[in-house]
């Protein structure tokens, strides 16, 4: 083997090893020891940047150990429009997403406890087709709400989504109305509904169940908004500031109750729920 190829291979394997051990913070560019980052709930210890986490990681850090019981885990996408775009059929994308994530849909739902209080929880996972709102996603979020309604249990939904799922066309749009119809019934029965908006919560998800919590909580720096930055810039023909559509921006304009660090979320949720006099 010529020396230059050998050197390259060695370098590659060294880079790979480095990638496995270190991660680069997307906000402050600091190199952080990966295990430290994970131990810190995937939050940069240097600048408090909140990285995206999986649904099960979220469940693990929020619910009491061993209390989570998943429901409706077999619901998965169909292909109602037989949708094919420039990059191939929707069916294939779904299969890839399922294999990559081990999930069946962009949300995981179930029952569990937070500091001893029974709750129903729905946690979106951005890795599954960008956390998009498919028919299965909407169904699971509605069924979670229905469980809350039937058993008078508080409902907590963690959003992480780019919005509607174009590949399911109008049926995706209708999930906005469907999920909100479920939340509306909770209001009628005076059952708490808390929305936690994580990075990102945009489009059809921000314009439905994510924005109508009794209490809306967001993680620091989360992207939260309705229309995409590029669309708005093209419409108004001006550059938007970096702070635009951050959790801090949305709090300042009155659409969030608070921004809470990931490490304090469980405590905060538990405290808010303690004010529910059933």
């Amino acid at each position, binding site marked *: 083997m010529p020396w230059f190829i050998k050197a390259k291979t060695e370098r590659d394997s060294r880079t790979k090893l480095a990638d496995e051990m270190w991660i680069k913070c997307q906000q402050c560019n600091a190199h952080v020891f990966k295990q430290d980052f994970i131990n810190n709930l995937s939050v940069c210890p240097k600048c408090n940047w909140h990285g995206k986490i999986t649904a099960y990681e979220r469940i693990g850090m929020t619910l009491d150990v061993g209390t989570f019981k998943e429901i409706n885990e077999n619901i998965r996408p169909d292909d109602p429009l037989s949708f094919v775009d420039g990059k191939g059929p929707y069916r294939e994308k779904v299969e890839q997403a399922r294999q990559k994530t081990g999930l069946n849909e962009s949300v995981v739902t179930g029952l569990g406890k937070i500091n001893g209080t029974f709750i129903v929880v729905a946690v979106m996972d951005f890795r599954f087709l960008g956390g998009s709102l*498919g028919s299965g996603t909407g169904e699971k979020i509605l069924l979670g709400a229905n469980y809350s309604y039937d058993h008078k249990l508080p409902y907590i939904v963690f959003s992480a989504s780019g919005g509607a799922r174009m590949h399911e066309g109008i049926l995706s749009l209708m999930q906005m109305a469907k999920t909100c119809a479920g939340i509306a019934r909770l209001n009628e029965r005076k059952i708490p509904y808390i929305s936690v908006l994580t990075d990102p919560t945009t489009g059809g998800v921000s314009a*439905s169940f994510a924005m109508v919590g009794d209490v809306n909580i967001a993680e620091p720096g989360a992207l939260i908004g309705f229309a995409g930055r590029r669309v708005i810039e093209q*419409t108004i023909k001006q550059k938007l500031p970096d702070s635009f559509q951050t959790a801090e921006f949305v709090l300042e304009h009155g659409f969030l109750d608070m921004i809470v660090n990931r490490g304090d979320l469980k405590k905060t949720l538990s405290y808010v729920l303690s004010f529910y006099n059933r």
Partner: protein
Amino acid sequence: MERELDFERPIADMEKAVQKLKNLTGDQKSDLSDQLDELQKKLIERKKEIYDNLTPWQTVQVARHPQRPVVHDYIDLVFSDFIELHGDRCFGDDRALIGGFALIGSEKVMLIGHAKGHSVEDNVNRNFGMARPEGYRKALRLMHLAEKYNLPVVTFIDTMGAYPGLDAEERGQAEAIARNLTEMARLEVPIIAVVTGEGGSGGALGIGVGDAILMLSHSIYSVISPEGCASILWRDASYNAHAAEALKLTSKSLLELGVIDEIIAEPPGGAHADPQRTADEVKTVILKYIKKISSRSPSKLVSKRFEKFAAMGKFTS
């Protein structure tokens, strides 16, 4: 100024020929009148043929036709004694989304609709029917008023989408739409939603949670515009026609997908060819649904609406 679409050119040519013949014959009966009748008959057949076979992308163009009737045309042609009610009581009055008391036949209703215009000036004034949060909040205020006065709500949907602007984001476009979806789900009066032109995503749905959802035959209703979809999923905006096809956004597709209750037939040549006839049909169908839905008790109304939306979507389990 009349504008014709590419596929309408044969119609326009025939219409010109008819006009020419009419000018020739004048008021008198002549041997040309047989020819004229024949030509007019053919014209109607040709219109019907073209409009029965529109592609989804052609339908998008018809739905956006500058002469297509807008809410103010329907206010004149379908309703009587409309009294506009202004303002959201929070921030301002959105001219892109209007509403007020109106009579349809002898039925008193609350009418709410996106307001596109026909002229550029009118469209600029009404932001091309793209509402801001204050528009959706006004709509919700009027729906609650309808509930208090026990009036059915009739909504006319015709918008590219909710306005994607800096001010709209600052004032909570997402929250305004989300609030409407949540409140409309439990409103204790009938809601009848009619898509008359463009049903543009969340901006359309924000007044679209109905007990009955109706669509004019050449209107469209979609989660995203074909242009937006093409640029995201094909990375090329020239794939508009592909995207329009893939999104299944025509009235026929939506009926098949179980999203809408009925298609309101447009006359040959589309709604813009005969607004009066279109309006008559719209009126008949709305009255039919008001009659049908008004018999439900408030609790039945709300539970049926919940069931309707709970059943939407297709997944595997």
